[in-house]
């Protein structure tokens, strides 16, 4: 069967098995197994691709929930969307959530996903109490910050390359309602945007939609959106069924002109410098989840999301350089997301580091990878790195330079025999 990540590139042929019990899952991991576990396939590139894949989507059960402490135990194949559906009406929310709720808990661990509260609350794995990991030997071990610590720090953000997470335990956080008080600030340029991130570092959530097409004085103009859980209000879940894009949109629809138009509209639709509103968590955190298969707007040939982080000290200069390069290429995506990260963690391949991260979509075209290679070099020069969950094309050299812990990661993988068993198209490409 043909499979791909969310970017619809690359596409590979894979044999998928879907075990329905943990016993059946363990039975698949024999001496000859070579492949990767896969959840919703929402990583953009080739992280969840291999000639043999194990779909975790049927291992999706809740095991227990403590109503007093918010501690939840669940199987790795459950979706964040499912957790929210069950627990948000009871006043609980995810400690960290990425920009889509259609990912599995296992996927969230493998990519050590981050959200709009990274500057205060770190990434997803920082909230894990423990998880059960199926090793290449067929044995299952419990990993936490105290038990099997090296496996814990290798597996959190380890792209599924150390073993298969079967079950995870973490704490949900209590919230006063399912609504978010949202403040939007319109900025004129990059310096102002970064300055405002710094000034609003006590806000629980912050993110900026940045106009990557704007040049000159307006370079880096943004809409900075801050958010707090509303304390007053009710607990509800919207009953709207999402829109669906049923087929790939023809290539010519999305071009520099239409993208420019959209970006202009998006930026200028907010008239005031400051505006605020009350928004449900669903449109606040997951604006694109309202449109199923939104990736199809990029057409059949697919797209890639380029997400990098630059350390704080080089942030303004580095971002300026990269934004100029993208604006000059005229190939920027219509919406790009900028976010200030707090401190990184000890996980060997986790993406976040203290600084600024920018994510942009690029429709695939001839010559794109050349542009991205140039960007890679700038990112490296400023001491940054690229998010593995979004990557489909980074070179081994760039990866190894920007993720210095890769050697320690490889050592641990070898120690547990994971290097022979758990391999993805991405791990092959990156020389892991």
């Amino acid at each position, binding site marked *: *069967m043909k499979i791909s990540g969310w970017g619809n590139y690359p596409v590979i042929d894979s044999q*998928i098995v*879907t075990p*329905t*019990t*943990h*016993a059946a899952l363990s039975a698949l991991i024999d001496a000859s197994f070579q492949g990767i576990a896969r959840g919703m396939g929402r990583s953009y590139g080739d992280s969840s691709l291999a000639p043999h894949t194990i779909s975790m989507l*049927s291992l999706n*059960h*809740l*095991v*227990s*929930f403590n109503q007093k402490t918010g501690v939840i135990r669940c*199987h790795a194949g459950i979706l964040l969307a499912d957790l929210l559906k*069950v627990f948000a009406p009871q006043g609980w929310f995810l400690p960290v959530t990425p920009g889509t709720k259609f990912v599995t808990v296992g996927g969230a661990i493998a990519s050590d996903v981050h959200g709009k509260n990274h500057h205060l609350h770190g990434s997803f794995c920082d909230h894990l109490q423990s998880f059960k990991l199926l090793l290449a030997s067929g044995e299952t071990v419990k990993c936490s910050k105290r038990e099997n610590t090296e496996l814990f720090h290798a597996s959190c953000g380890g792209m599924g390359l150390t073993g298969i997470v079967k079950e995870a335990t973490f704490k949900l956080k209590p919230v006063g309602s399912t609504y978010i008080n949202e403040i939007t600030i319109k900025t004129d340029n990059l310096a102002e945007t970064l300055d405002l991130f710094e000034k609003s570092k006590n806000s629980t959530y912050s993110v900026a939609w940045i106009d990557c097409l704007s040049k000159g004085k307006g370079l880096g103009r943004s809409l900075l959106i801050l958010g707090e859980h509303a304390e007053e209000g009710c607990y509800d879940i919207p009953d709207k069924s999402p829109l669906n894009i*049923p087929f790939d949109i023809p290539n010519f629809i999305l071009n520099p002109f239409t993208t420019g138009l959209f970006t202009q509209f998006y930026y200028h639709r907010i008239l005031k410098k400051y505006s605020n509103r009350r928004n449900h968590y669903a449109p606040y955190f997951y604006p694109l989840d309202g449109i199923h298969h939104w990736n199809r707007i990029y057409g059949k040939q697919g797209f890639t999301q380029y997400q990098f982080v630059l350390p704080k000290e080089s942030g303004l200069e580095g971002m300026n350089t990269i934004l100029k390069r993208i604006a000059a290429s005229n190939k920027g995506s219509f919406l790009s997301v900028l976010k200030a990260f707090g401190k990184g963690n000890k996980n060997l391949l986790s993406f976040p580091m203290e600084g600024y991260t920018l994510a942009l979509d690029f429709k695939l075209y001839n010559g794109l990878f050349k542009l991205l290679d140039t960007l890679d070099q700038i990112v490296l020069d400023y001491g940054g790195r690229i998010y593995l969950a979004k990557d489909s094309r980074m070179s081994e050299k760039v990866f190894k330079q920007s993720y210095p812990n890769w050697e320690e990661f490889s050592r641990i993988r070898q120690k547990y025999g994971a290097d022979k068993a758990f391999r993805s198209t991405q791990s092959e490409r990156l020389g892991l």
Partner: protein
Amino acid sequence: MQKILIIGATSAIAEATAKLYAAQGDHLYLLARDENRLKSIVDDLKVRGAASVKSQQLDVNDQTARTKSIAQAIELMGNIDVALIAHGTLPNQELCQQEVELMQKELETNAISTLSILTLLANSMEKQKQGTIAVISSVAGDRGRQSNYVYGAAKGMVSIFLQGLRNRLVKSGVNVIDIKPGFVDTPMTADFKKGLLWAQPESIAQGIVNAINKGSEVVYLPWFWRYIMLIIKSIPEFIFKKLSL
């Protein structure tokens, strides 16, 4: 709080339906063959809010166990508000054409076992004078086609049995629903290429709960299959026999 009995509870559609009842805080009693998965589902439904979840391992083709398990469920539940029969397999048509025994076994799994369970349940629910019996058959039971007529024949047999049972139980206040899903994206159909006509088990489950609440008789899920099957049923046989459906 309703009392819900589900047979074939590990099937994707049944599980999705059970989740909806669990979220409403109902009592659930589950029967299924795969004991490991069944246990996992029981925990899941408890966390999701079910008032209680009981379960019992059952291979529906084991006649003795079948009779005993259904009798036990009836006794322990006392009163059954909803009985959902959802077990089944998707036979390999080509193999069934080669092996008579396999063909018979598939009929046993997809029809005879269902009719046996229905007979036991009907007698009990007739006495309690209320409740709903809902059975998942299939659009495949509406007309025989060369690509899966063994499955179609089994499901068709179930549908005709349900018509008669409905006719018999209406006097007792028991409603009998025939649920005919079209293409559903489940582990049973994992090997099929999915297109626009495919539905998710969650949407089928919502359709089942709605049909039970409304007291429907025959429901196609999603709704458009009623019209697709209307067209397929109306094609004259001398043309139909030449089609490769």
